[in-house]
Each structure stands twice: as structure tokens, then as C-alpha cells.
């Protein structure tokens, strides 16, 4: 065990604190679900990239900071931003899922073309995986792509596509080789959303915003070089992406930041004249969550360390999404309670503007339920944890329909 700060680490910490003092007032608000970054957010992201507070380990030639992978550095940055209540920068599916996928299996050209604008928040990606009726069985994708004149021609339908209504690009899982076995017939394509034949129909959710979409493809033509790896490698690539998604969803630094934001909210809110921070019943709920967040943050550092050692994370990785999303929801539930009746005013400002504090928390509270459902419900996560993680037997195949 060694969490010692070297001189470099101490310098980094001092540098961030200075940055927070100087520029902290320019930070956009955290939370509130996904939306296209506004100018304030783009400017903030640019500042973070310049100093390596975002995309720190992404090579310079792809627009990153080119820092060495250092678990402690990452932890210091996350901590300092969390404590100062600053936005840690843009977090979206392009940055968290596509970029690491391209770094892992993309061509040099794909990396040079896509990574830089993606991490700057200029190119927004959406994920074309789920299809109607297929539930969590992604490998059963029916959306077809056939080759014609140097292009893939795509027909079919995706659903639950978050951000599609404002995204520039989609990474798409589709069936290119229907005659091959289920998992071997898939390919992974990069598709501009402006391509003719793409019809995006927003799916308004309980937050009142269109977080998801249905996306229809009619003879959508994409050059054949817009494939990641080769034909039939789609399932492999998609799983790399999903692996990165699972890590993203459990991000403990966002949870830690929520703890601090709720603490702050508690000092500003009063019930019949009494500060909520001085109500032990509510304070105890925050402390309990703080302990759990502290555990999840430590767990995250442990995973980083073990990954650096090349150890197989096994069940330790599989639990992250489940407990991370559940914990996130419990935190926003507490925030909603602290806001109380005064916080019931709800005015989402849509994609372009920043929401007020109460609206942001309410969106998170609902959106977190979406996260618990999306990409395999908590129930399916528990099956995966028990079967893959603990080796418990699978359910017997049903001999008859229920």
C-alpha cells in the first residue's frame, strides 16, 4: 500500500487548487442528465484539456495531454475537482466508450480523425445497439448492412438511443453476415448522423426531455472504411465498448462530488428555521452514503492498481455498475429530500441552457433510475454478478412458456 505524494503529485495538487481559485467561477454545473455541451461547457473543457485535467493520458497526437498513466494523478485531479465543486469536464459516450475503443482497436487514421474533436466535446456520439423487442439481448441485432459499390447500405431500427437527436455520429452494431452464427455475423460501423436515410424520432422520458430516441435506417450509405476492425468483428468491438461503459457508470468521483454538493445544500436549506445540516436524521443519511462512496472510491483505486498489474478483475469489476448506479440514485434521493417542498418547482431548460439546482437534482433522481434499467436492468446485473462473478449455476432452461 503506497499512496505517497511525490513532489510532482504535490505540485499537481497545488496547481489545480490555483486553477480552481482562478477559474472556478467558470465551471458549468454538474449533473442533470445528458445534453449537448453549451459554449460554457466547451470553453471549460478546452481549459481542462490544456492543463491535462481531462483526457490526461490520451496521446498528444490525438488531441490529449499525453500524460503517463498514473493512478494517483487521476485520483488527485478527481478529488480536487470534487472538493472544489467543479465540473470534471464532459462525460459522454464518445469520450468514455468510443475513444478508448478506438485507442484499443481503431486504425491510426480513425484515431487521428475522431479522438480530438470528440474529447473537445465538438463531435457527439450516440450508441446504436438496442433494438425493439430484443431487450438486453444485444447480439440478436437485426439491423442489416449489405455492401454495395464501396458502401455499407444500412436498413433497420434502433431504440433507446440516447443523444441521437443531437449527436453527430453513431457507433452502430449491425448484421453484415446473416448466414454466419449469431455472434459472428455482426460489424461495428461509424455512421454520420447527417447521412440521408436516417430518421431520428425523439422518445420523451419521464424527465420531460428527449434523452432517448428511436432511430430508423432506410438505405443509409456509409463508405466501407467506416468499419472498426473487420467484418464479423462487431461483437468483439461492441464488448470492448461495453466494458468501458461499465467502468464509466460506476465512476466514484461523481458520487463523491454529489456528497459534497448535498452537504453544501444542507447548509443552505432550512426547515421551519432549522438548518437541515443540523438535523441529525438527515445528516446521518448523508454520512452513511459518504461511507459507501468512500468505499466505492477506494474500490475504484484498487481496480486501477490491479488493472495496472494486469490482474483479472473478475467479480470486482462486475459489481461496479450495480452498486454505482444504486448509490447514485440514493444520493440524488437524499438531495431531493433536502430540497423538500421548495424544490418541487421543475423547469428543465432543454438542451441549450443550464438548469437550476432543484431541476438538476430531480433530473438526476429520475435519470439514475434509467441508468439502473438501461443496458441491462439491475436484475440482470445481479444475474451476471452471481453467474460470471461467483460461479453460481445458470437458471435451467424453461421447458415450457410460463
Amino acid at each position, binding site marked *: 500500500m503506497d499512496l505517497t505524494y511525490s513532489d510532482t503529485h504535490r505540485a499537481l495538487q497545488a496547481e489545480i487548487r490555483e486553477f480552481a481559485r482562478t477559474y472556478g467561477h467558470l465551471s458549468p454545473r454538474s449533473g442533470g442528465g445528458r445534453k449537448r455541451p453549451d459554449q460554457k461547457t466547451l470553453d471549460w473543457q478546452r481549459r481542462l484539456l490544456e492543463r491535462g485535467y481531462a483526457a490526461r493520458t490520451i496521446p498528444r497526437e490525438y488531441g490529449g495531454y499525453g500524460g503517463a498513466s498514473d493512478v494517483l494523478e487521476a485520483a488527485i485531479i478527481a478529488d480536487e475537482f470534487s472538493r472544489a465543486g467543479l465540473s470534471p469536464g464532459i462525460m459522454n459516450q464518445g469520450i468514455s466508450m468510443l475513444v478508448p475503443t478506438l485507442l484499443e482497436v481503431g486504425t491510426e487514421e480513425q484515431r487521428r480523425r475522431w479522438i480530438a474533436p470528440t474529447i473537445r466535446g465538438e463531435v457527439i456520439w450516440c450508441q446504436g445497439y438496442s433494438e425493439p423487442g430484443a*431487450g438486453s*439481448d444485444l447480439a440478436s441485432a437485426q439491423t442489416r448492412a449489405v455492401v454495395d459499390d464501396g458502401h455499407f447500405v444500412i436498413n433497420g431500427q434502433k*431504440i*433507446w438511443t440516447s443523444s441521437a437527436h443531437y449527436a453527430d455520429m453513431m457507433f452502430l452494431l449491425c448484421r453484415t453476415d446473416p448466414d454466419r452464427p449469431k455472434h459472428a455475423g455482426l460489424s461495428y460501423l461509424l455512421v454520420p448522423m447527417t447521412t440521408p436515410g436516417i430518421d431520428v424520432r425523439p*422518445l*420523451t*422520458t*419521464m424527465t*420531460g426531455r428527449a434523452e*432517448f430516441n428511436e432511430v430508423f435506417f432506410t438505405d443509409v450509405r456509409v463508405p466501407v472504411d467506416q468499419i472498426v476492425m473487420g467484418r464479423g468483428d462487431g461483437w468483439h468491438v461492441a464488448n470492448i465498448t461495453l466494458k468501458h461503459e461499465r467502468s464509466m457508470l460506476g465512476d466514484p468521483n461523481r458520487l463523491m462530488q454529489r456528497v459534497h454538493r448535498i452537504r453544501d445544500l444542507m447548509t443552505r*436549506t*432550512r*426547515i*421551519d*428555521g432549522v438548518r*437541515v445540516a443540523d*438535523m441529525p*436524521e*438527515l445528516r446521518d443519511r448523508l454520512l452513511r452514503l459518504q461511507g459507501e462512496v468512500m468505499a466505492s472510491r477506494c474500490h475504484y483505486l484498487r481496480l486501477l492498481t490491479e488493472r495496472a498489474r494486469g490482474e483479472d478483475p473478475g467479480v470486482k469489476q462486475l459489481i461496479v455498475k450495480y452498486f454505482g448506479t444504486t448509490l447514485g*440514485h440514493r444520493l440524488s*434521493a437524499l438531495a*431531493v*429530500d*433536502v*430540497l*423538500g*417542498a*421548495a*424544490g*418541487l*418547482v*421543475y*423547469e428543465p431548460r432543454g438542451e441549450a441552457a443550464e438548469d437550476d439546482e432543484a431541476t438538476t437534482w*430531480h433530473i438526476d*433522481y*429520475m435519470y439514475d*433510475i*434509467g441508468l*439502473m*434499467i*438501461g443496458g441491462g*436492468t*439491475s*436484475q440482470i446485473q*445481479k444475474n451476471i454478478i452471481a453467474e460470471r462473478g461467483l460461479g453460481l449455476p445458470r437458471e435451467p432452461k*424453461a421447458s415450457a*412458456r*410460463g
Partner: protein
Amino acid sequence: MEFGPNDAQRLFERLVRKLLADHLPMDALHRLANAGSGFDDRFWSALTELGVAGVLVPERFGGAGLGVFEAALAAEALGYHAAPTPFAAAAVMAPLAILGAGSEAARAAWLPRVATGTARLGVAFETLAGSTANSAVERRGDRLSGCLESVVDLAGATHVLVVLDDGTLAVLPVDGPGVRAACRPSLDRTRPPGQVHLADAPAEILEPGSDPQRLACSVVDAGRTMLAADTLGAAQSMLDRAVAHAGQREQFGRLIGSFQAVKHMCADMVAMLEPCRSLVWYAAHAQDAIPEEARVAACHAKAHLAEVGREVSRMATEVHGGMGFTDELGLHYWFKRIGANRQLLGGPERCRQEAAAAQGWSTA
């Protein structure tokens, strides 16, 4: 002794439920909720005709002359249908306040109009209701200045009844001089919260009863009981939908209700929720007939339904999978209504603090 509604009470409940089912199919609910005003003239008239608006108004003033218990049955039904309408303040808290204070002349002036649905009073508290609202009012003679947040039932209101910290009750017309009343865009699109600004606004100060603070508390208690009943109905509605969905949706080649995980979520929901019905009945009955238990029962009903409502609303949404998260299905109207009920008139921790104090268990 009979624990539960008697025949007359069950008849009343059935009539209310029938009316709501007729008026609020999902497309109507979508329409009214999207409008977001929390009030619809035609729907209100229908409720009034059935006696819902005047449920607590004595017969001599033209009301139904029923009790808080019957009002809770109506509130449960309103919650079950996520009805976009005033009720807790307009039909319960305000008439109770006027019955408990005010001169006989004031009663004769107000209550018949409450019963006919033509006077609709929103209710606002300065602080006594345990909420996070930033409300403060200054009184000079019969004139009030200040700001009131989280006003209950301001939607469609003709007047607002203000409960000051000393228990004083003041009534002002929403369009009177010095009064600026507006509903705010709300999480719960079926019942928007209100805000009232008062600038030296002339008010009718009701003649205080024998114990104004106690009356104010009992108005809060009745309001909390209504919110608890509303959550009960809303949660029951979500549970019923979840069970129906689990019994017809197939995934992985099976009805999802045949999976133990789904089954046990449904079992947990019903095991939590069903005893709540009896608790709400008891709390409502206590307001009518057991004064020494009224406060503790109301606090517990409000707090416990808030907790169970939150759990049921989350689990029922989860059972629906992605569909539960969409606007189209409309499940979220109940989810948000339950969420709003939890916060209005004091969250569960606050209500439990008051239950402790009422039993002499704390000095709070």
C-alpha cells in the same frame, strides 16, 4: 366495531372511483397534465356534483357532512387516477380551518361556496408545516405583506387561506389588491405548487378559535393524512400496473412475471403497501374521532407512506423496464405525484420528529 369503511362509505368511494375512471383515461390525463394548470373546470364541476368539494362541509351549509375518513377515501381514489385537481387544501384543510375558527357568519359566508365549488381556497403556511419553503409574512392590522411558497392547491384557487405562525387565519382573494399569486412549473404536472406575494394586501382575518395553534396543527394533520392517502392510491396504481405488465410482457421466451426477481419485487411491493391502507384509514379516522391519537397517526401515515411510496414507485418503474422510463406510458405521473406528496407539508424525517414530540419522546 368495524375497522374499515362501512357500506355507505364504500358506496361513496365507488362513486368517486367511477367518476374518475370515466373522466381520466390516459389520453385525458396526458392532455391535462401537459397543460399543467392543475385545474379543469368540467372535471371540477363533476367532482363537486358528487360532493367531493364539500365532503367536509356540514349539511346545514349545503355540504355532504362527511368526515376526514371519507375524504381520505376520495384522496386515495384521486391518487389512484393521478387526478389533476385541487383537493387536500380546497376540500379538506380550508373547510376544517373555517369550521374550527371564524364566526358563525364567516362559516355561513364561506362554507356554502366551498360546497358548491365556487370558492376554492389554496392553503399556505408561514412555517408550521415543516417544509423547506421560504415563507414569511408580516401582518399589520388586517393587511399582510410577504411571500408564501409551496402553497397547496393554488391551482384554480379563487382565494388563499394563510396560516400565520401564531395560528391566525387570513383569507385573501387571489386577484385582490396587493396579491400576486402564480403557480410554478412543477415536477408533478398534475398539481403545480403555488407562490403568493403579498404587498400590504387587505385580508379577511377569521375570528380565532379557542386554541389557534392547535387548530393550525390539526389542519396540517388533516392535510398530511390526505397526502398519505393520495400516495397510497398512486402507489397502488403503480403496483397494479407493474403486476399487469409482469403478467403479459415476455422476455427471454418467458413471461417476465415468472422470473423470481420480478415476482419478489411485486411481493415486496404488496407486502409493504397493503398494510398502509389500514394505517391511512386509521389516521383519517383519528382526525374525526380520536383527538389524542390524531397527530401521531397523521405524522406516521405521512412519513410511512412517503417511504413506501418511494420504494414502490421505483420498483414498479423497474419492473416496466425501459418502457417505465418513457413519457408515453405515463407511469411517471404517479412517480412524480408520489414524490411531491413526500415533500409537501414536511418530509418523513420531519414528520417522525413531530410524532416523537407528540408522544413526549423528545423536546423537539
